[in-house]
């Protein structure tokens, strides 16, 4: 057992976990942040994506201990109170989700994609960048639309800040 100290969604926590515990299980089982999902166990599907120090990572592919001292943001931590993150709103407005299982990972990956590409996003880039997130419901059509829509919204909201 080890104590892992990290900041999750802005709150400092210290969690005692078995050394073999994966970050996703620390979040789900110890902190009850069940929005982060496990879909494949092999780093392929991206249902577990969270932000670690601002970058998208697959939380099923790192040990909780590796996140010691890090700043983790999960799907539960991106809205400002009742105000949805622009990516969340874009997924809703463009019908970018159906069963919702891949959605948290999709949104977390998509935010990272927009951050990395800024205003340079186009459809081929979004499709290529989403290669690590699998959805079985939507055929990706509306997810791609949502990400492109949110890229515009995020530029606007950054400009406003």
């Amino acid at each position, binding site marked *: 057992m080890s104590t892992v100290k990290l900041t999750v969604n802005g709150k400092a926590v210290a969690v005692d976990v078995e050394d073999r515990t994966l970050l996703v299980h620390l979040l*789900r089982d110890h902190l009850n942040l069940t929005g982060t999902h496990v879909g494949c166990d092999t780093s*392929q*599907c991206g249902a577990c994506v969270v932000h670690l120090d601002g970058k998208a990572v697959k939380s099923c592919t790192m040990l909780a201990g590796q996140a010691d001292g890090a700043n983790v943001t999960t799907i539960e931590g991106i809205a400002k109170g009742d105000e949805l993150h622009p990516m969340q709103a874009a997924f809703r407005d463009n*019908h970018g989700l159906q069963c*919702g299982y891949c959605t948290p990972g999709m949104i977390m990956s998509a935010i990272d994609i927009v951050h990395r590409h800024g205003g340079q996003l186009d459809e081929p880039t979004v499709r290529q960048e989403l290669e690590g997130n699998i959805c079985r419901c*939507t*055929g990706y059509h509306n997810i791609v639309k949502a990400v492109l829509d949110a890229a515009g919204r995020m530029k606007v909201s950054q400009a406003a800040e």
Partner: protein
Amino acid sequence: MGVEGIGARVVRKEDKRFITGKGRYVDDIKLLGMTHAHFIRSPHAHAKVKKIDSSAALKMPGVVAVLTGQELVDDKVGNLICGWAITSKDGTPMKMGAWPAMAPETVRFVGQAVAVVIADSKNLARDAAESVVVDYEELPAVADMQSAIKAGAPQLHPEAPGNQVYDWVIGDEGATDAAFAKAANVVKLDVTNNRLAPNAMEPRAAIADYDAAEEHFTLYTTSQNPHVARLVLSAFYNIAPEHKLRVIAPDVGGGFGSKIFIYPEEMVALWASKKVGRPVKWTGDRTEAFLTDAHGRDHVTHAEMAFDANNKITGLKVKTYANFGAYMSLFSSSVPTYLYATLLSGQYNIPAIHAEVVGVYTNTTPVDAYRGAGRPEASYLIERLMETAARQLKVDPAQLRRTNFITQFPHQTPVIMAYDTGDFNASLDAAMKAIDYAGFAARKAQAKSQGKLRGIGVSCYIEACGIAPSKAVGSLGAGVGLWESAEVRVNPVGTIEILTGSHSHGQGHETTFCQLVAERLGVPISQVSIVHGDTDKVQFGMGTYGSRSAAVGLTAILKAMEKMESKAKKIAAHALEASEGDIVIENGEFKVAGTDKAIAFPMVALAAYTAHNLPDGMEPGLKESAFYDPTNFTFPAGAYICELEVDPGTGKTSFVNFVAADDFGRLINPMIVEGQVHGGLAQGIGQALLEHAIYDANGQPVTASFMDYSMPRADDLPSFNLSHTTTLCPGNPLGIKGCGEAGAIGASAAVINAITDAIGKNNLEMPATPDRVWRTIHAA
């Protein structure tokens, strides 16, 4: 249409919880004192279980129990059932071997459970499973159908000699032979419909909780049809009587058919929770999903189509071998028979059809209904045949289809189905216009000048949805009625709860079902909530599959709404001192037609519950229910056209355009309908280009993770170009046909027709990987 009524593109009410991480899936639920189950699964495709030694595991800390298949037998827990009886052509019933939830004696596919470890945590259960020693005696195994039906092949079940479950026929053999004898041309085709793994993104999971004082079980499970699960668990598996078993299917992360069936794991969890006296949770991992979720498709077919001198189809002969895997799953028997062969007429006037289907056992994961279920296999076969015929007869493939389209309705096919309505020319027109079919030749020439092989492929599909009426499916062997139920509960303040037996696991019922209420009453959808997925709340229901929830489930809601409105009108008329026949419902008010007298709906509801001033003899309250059994299947149909380029140097396929023109009858929410089509198309394209569940000759699965099974990803797919044509379904009052599976049914043939058009060779099996396409291009 109001802003939230039928036909409005309303954003989904359910989305807020999903986009904020507040969805509640089975694995998100924790119960006090909960234990965790880990199944010990066979590494062999076929073996005798000689001995299970769990002594070391039982000494490990945190281990509660190790339970085996023999204990299931000792406790008289029933075997898994197949709920649709099929009769072979010789009049004998289908031949099935027993499927115990954990194998006491013989395992017949890799991944079949033999024992389960129950421990205080998932990790402890997994650790302990490593210490359980299972002594197997390996037996010869057979994984492919062609080998399984040969003399001398390893035999799976003594009940099914030759590994044959049934040899079933449909249609008129004599009339079909006569048509072929007179044919001007005969087109022959061999096709394999590749095996798919469903892979809903949420792995299956179950939590079972036994209350010893009440002798009552609660099961949280990833189910598309919790009431059917309760019925089967109760009536056949001897778990508990129905009133002592509550089944809850909360948010479910995709189903596609794979979560219809009752699997061993939830059954064992229920049984184990009573044995250990604590709640038991099992959450599958992805490899367990590959090993144990019922697979789809896996047909091998030879077909011949006869044409007269005018290119009119005169007959169709089909022989199909259908792989069932090692056991007969819940609805497996119906898939290659009544869900497949009954659609072999496609969109065409075919006077004579004869089809024979041989069901085969192999040492592989069981196969059952998946995303289209039989209809993709039928549509793929017919549309590949039409394309092959067009090439052989040297006519335009679109024109050959038009020559043979059914244009008069109703139309009785020679294979049971009576198509009620449709306009196949209209959908083909729409698709051809959308893709500029006329301009294709010029585009192909242009691509050729750049070293690319461009092709175009048409697919005109029809499907049968709703899977009803009950009397019809009962006569064909179904073990259950396939109606739907609904209840409308109006609260005293005028808010409304709709209880439905349909289950939403991505389809958006929490929005679309509210839209019907908004349409009828003029109340905002925020005043309406949809209750589903809990056998304690909803009395009964058949669940969601076969694209049936709108056509059947929503119609049941309509029927209950009509009853409720009828009573509400009486109350309103009484309050307004008017005649019941003069009351109209507008914008949330009950009005006396042609006057300014009105009473708001919440006041009607309140009057129903205060009961201070009701018509004489009327019961208080405002709550009505309905059971709805349709009069026929529904027949969604459409035309898909795919244009693509193949790189002859690599065999890689790139999409240029994919157009879909569907006729789903009335659309409740076009945004949601489009989403359903997008997902289906991705599945159809995935099957055509990428997906294949593969076993080696010894029955070892080669594709048991996302590392080796190719799931369609965003960069494998194009954006889609959708349109709709409309003929209203006459079989239900809303005119709805269903849209959930169309894409998966129609898309594969369009893709393969386009690739074979591009490369100029007709024989190409799915999945058309670059390697396979390159070899086909360069084959002698």
